[in-house]
């Protein structure tokens, strides 16, 4: 890896190239899934490639290849420079990077059990046992279970002298039970929808999730949903479980705080943000108990947004996003931190927040969520429900949508419970809720404590052109919101 990166950097004419970095990535993936008692997917994937990013005459160029021969490396270095020269045709200002000290690091994410050391037989046996438990419940028409493992070793090397090697191991596990009957499909997932829970951990996560032990319960819930009443429509008190709250954070806090969106760089695709620069330190984002951080450090937890250094060589940091309800910070890069600092010194830090990440060797880094987490509150969940006279508790995401400036959102969940007099009194099907971001977060009046807090992994966050998929982390404990619009998705 070092030879490839050094060679590319050595081929660049430093009289023309103001800055360059090279990322070499070697990755390995395993996907095993089952469906209705049979193997669904059994696939292994390995990849090795290199991407080089250059600043020439104040403009970016990027090129990548998986051909690591000498000729190819020379060609890719040349191509990156040519592309940067072409970028200058529409230059307004030179790109400037916020200062960052060079680093020389070798970091490996903690992993107790290497998932690739586990046998396929053992993987399949686990999934098929969970599958059998789900299908043992009468009425289940489709049972699915999956395991996903990834190990990526990345070398980052820059003309500023950074040499950063990181190895990250990710494990994902999940099950889904579906029930079709009488023109209706109901589903339950565990530990989360859309292929389960993902963390920066080894196979030990799989054991902790105990998919076999939870399979029958979720299957029974999927069947029971058919007989449940429809979620009512109107303004209600809402309690969200931690996984749904994780996605709520992702969509209505994580994306709007991306400074590239704020500055218009995503206007054509992912959209912009209501969090214009004047809002920083000048917006009551949520109620006073709402505290949100962007924390990529390992001490925050083994999230999909945990690393030692981002993909432009900036150390992992914890940034206050919302402090006591007030909007305090953006997700930034070296380029955007410098832009904002230059425009309005004092509005934002001149140092990058360290959030630049790329899907792989063939993609350019961009601002991505790290672990965007709601810090825990003080409530026990049982006490919170007992304290709720009339409300709805919603579990596990089923659908999600938000406008391109991140104001109006609507979420659907797999299962709801009506709460009356401090007790769950009846199951509700097809629960949904909608709102405006800041109104919603300002209506938060209770957050559960750290015993209920989970760092969820969202492995499928899409952004950018060409599109990049990234894993993000979201820590959350169940929380209560007042006067929320529920049920409109099925409204007449």
């Amino acid at each position, binding site marked *: 890896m070092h030879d490839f990166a050094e060679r590319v950097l050595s081929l660049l004419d430093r009289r023309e190239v103001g800055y360059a970095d090279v990322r070499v990535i070697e990755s390995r993936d395993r996907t095993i899934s089952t469906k209705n008692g049979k193997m669904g997917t059994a696939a292994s994937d390995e990849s090795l490639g290199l991407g080089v990013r250059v600043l020439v005459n104040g403009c970016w160029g990027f090129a990548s290849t998986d051909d690591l021969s000498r000729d190819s490396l020379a060609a890719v270095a040349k191509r990156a420079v040519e592309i940067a020269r072409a970028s200058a045709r529409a230059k307004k200002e030179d790109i400037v990077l916020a200062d960052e000290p060079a680093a020389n690091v070798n970091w490996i994410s903690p992993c107790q059990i290497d998932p690739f050391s586990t046998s*396929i037989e053992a993987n399949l046996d686990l999934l098929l046992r969970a599958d059998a438990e789900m299908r043992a419940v009468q009425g289940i028409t489709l049972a699915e279970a999956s395991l996903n493992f990834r190990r990526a070793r990345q070398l980052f090397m820059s003309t500023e002298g950074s040499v950063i090697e990181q190895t990250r191991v990710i494990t994902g596990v999940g099950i889904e039970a579906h029930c079709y009957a009488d023109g209706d499909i109901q589903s339950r997932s565990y530990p989360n929808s859309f292929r389960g829970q993902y963390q920066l951990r080894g196979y030990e996560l799989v054991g902790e999730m105990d998919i076999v032990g939870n399979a029958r319960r979720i299957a029974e819930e999927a069947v029971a949903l058919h007989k449940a009443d429809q979620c009512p429509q109107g303004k209600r008190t809402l309690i969200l479980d931690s996984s749904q709250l994780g996605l709520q954070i992702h969509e209505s806090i994580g994306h709007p705080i991306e400074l590239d969106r704020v500055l218009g760089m995503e206007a054509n695709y992912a959209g912009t943000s209501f969090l214009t620069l004047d809002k920083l330190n000048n917006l009551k984002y949520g109620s006073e108990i709402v505290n949100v951080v962007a924390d990529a450090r390992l001490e925050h937890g083994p999230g999909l947004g945990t690393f030692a250094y981002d993909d432009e060589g900036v150390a992992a940091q914890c940034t206050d996003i919302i402090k006591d309800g007030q909007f305090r910070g953006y997700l930034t890069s070296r380029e955007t931190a410098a832009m904002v600092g230059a425009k309005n010194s004092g509005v934002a830090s001149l140092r990058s927040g360290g959030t630049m990440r790329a899907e792989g060797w063939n993609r350019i880094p961009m601002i991505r969520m790290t672990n965007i987490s709601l810090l825990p509150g003080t409530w026990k969940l049982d006490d919170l429900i007992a304290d709720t006279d009339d409300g709805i508790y919603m579990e596990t995401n089923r659908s999600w949508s938000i*406008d391109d400036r991140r104001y109006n959102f609507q979420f659907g969940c797999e299962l709801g419970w009506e709460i009356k007099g401090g007790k769950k009194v009846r199951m509700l099907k097809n629960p949904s809720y909608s709102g405006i971001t800041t109104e919603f977060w300002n209506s938060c009046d209770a957050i559960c404590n750290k015993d209920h807090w989970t760092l969820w992994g969202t492995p499928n966050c899409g952004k950018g052109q060409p599109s990049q998929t990234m894993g993000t982390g979201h820590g959350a404990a169940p929380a209560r919101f007042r006067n929320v619009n529920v049920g409109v998705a099925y409204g007449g």
Partner: protein
Amino acid sequence: MIDPQRCQEIFAELLKYSQADETELLIGGGTHSLTRFANNTIHQNVAEEGYALSVRCVFGQRTARATTNRFDVESLKRVVAEASTLARQQQPDPELLSMPGPQQYEPVHRYFVATSQASADERAQGAVSAIRIAERNRQVAAGTLSTGEAMHALLNSRGLTAYYRGTNAEFSFTATAPSSTGWAKQSTPDLRDINPGELAEEACRIAARSAEPREIPPGRYVTILSPAAVLDLVGFMFCDFSGQALRDQRGFLTGRVGEKLFGENISITDDAYHALQTGAPFDGEGIPRQRLNLVEKGVVKELAYSRQSAKHAGVALTGHGFSLPNEMGEFPMNIVIAGSTHSIDEMIASTERGILVTRLWYIREVDPYKKILTGMTRDGTFLVENGKVQHGIRNFRFNESLVDLLNAVEMMSKPERSSGEESFPMVVPAMKVSSFHFTEATKF
């Protein structure tokens, strides 16, 4: 780009190391370059080249796949060994079919040198010409111009050989005015078909026309949907036009095939050979793609099948399977929706009160059987009254059933190749529907 001869050489080498009863090789990849602009300047400019080879081994009734992007001999040995190990550890699948033998394919020509050879300078020039138009309109440009070439080959030990190459070019443009936005997009295999200036002018006109958007109450409205909006909506239903989905009872067609589910004026085909379509004439198992009448005069007629799902259903092969092994089976991806001859202007002129939608965004499925979708309008939403576009309006959230939507189509334009964000490009018309349920308004 990897040519057919090189594919054969790789496969011959691969077979030396395979002890499997049957062996299949997929090779895919190519080049893709994209120039991205925002704030009237190019801010990202990238190029990539990459290929992957994927090996599937079969031992008895067991199969699995391993993939690598390394083509040296040691990597070929390793990927075969990995696929073999994975396959041997599977449980037998009694429904696994032997690989297909040689097939005949209808030729398609979707490779254009003007696209594959486009330079960074050409893309930058296209971007600059569009940016200048935004600047002349005192608006701000954001968008992309991309070009690329891709190949896809499938070979197996029973003698099947399939090879496809094609090019793709895409231009997408968002114009931002002080209080509004507009958008236009086009994708085609031939870069020469794209006129960035025309598309930029269109987006700027939409932005200007929707200035100072006013809030109107949500509710059910007569609605005119652009082709891009139509494709982003209907794209959510085609994964259910699948024999495997029917077997899994996972989609909205469970128990409905043969029913008149949509309006009499709705006819939909899957046609990989349509002049405006792209992609290979074979599926993930190397089976030739067949034309399908998915919907005829509102009746759900035919589904897509893989070899395995076709055998289970007792029907002929359609050539729509994904590469094995997989969970989804198959679905149609060369959609052509029959339209009519009405222009969007005629739709507007015929509307007493309604909404005109340029683009939809962040569409997600709320209910899998009722096929309720939610999403937002964006980049140019208008109130139409008395046959004329009156003014821009604040964007709406919608919750609408696709089944209801396709029973409410009153007018359609001539179908065109269109690109959106939520689904693959299709050949679709604009539609005027008698009712579309907007449930909330947002802040802009």
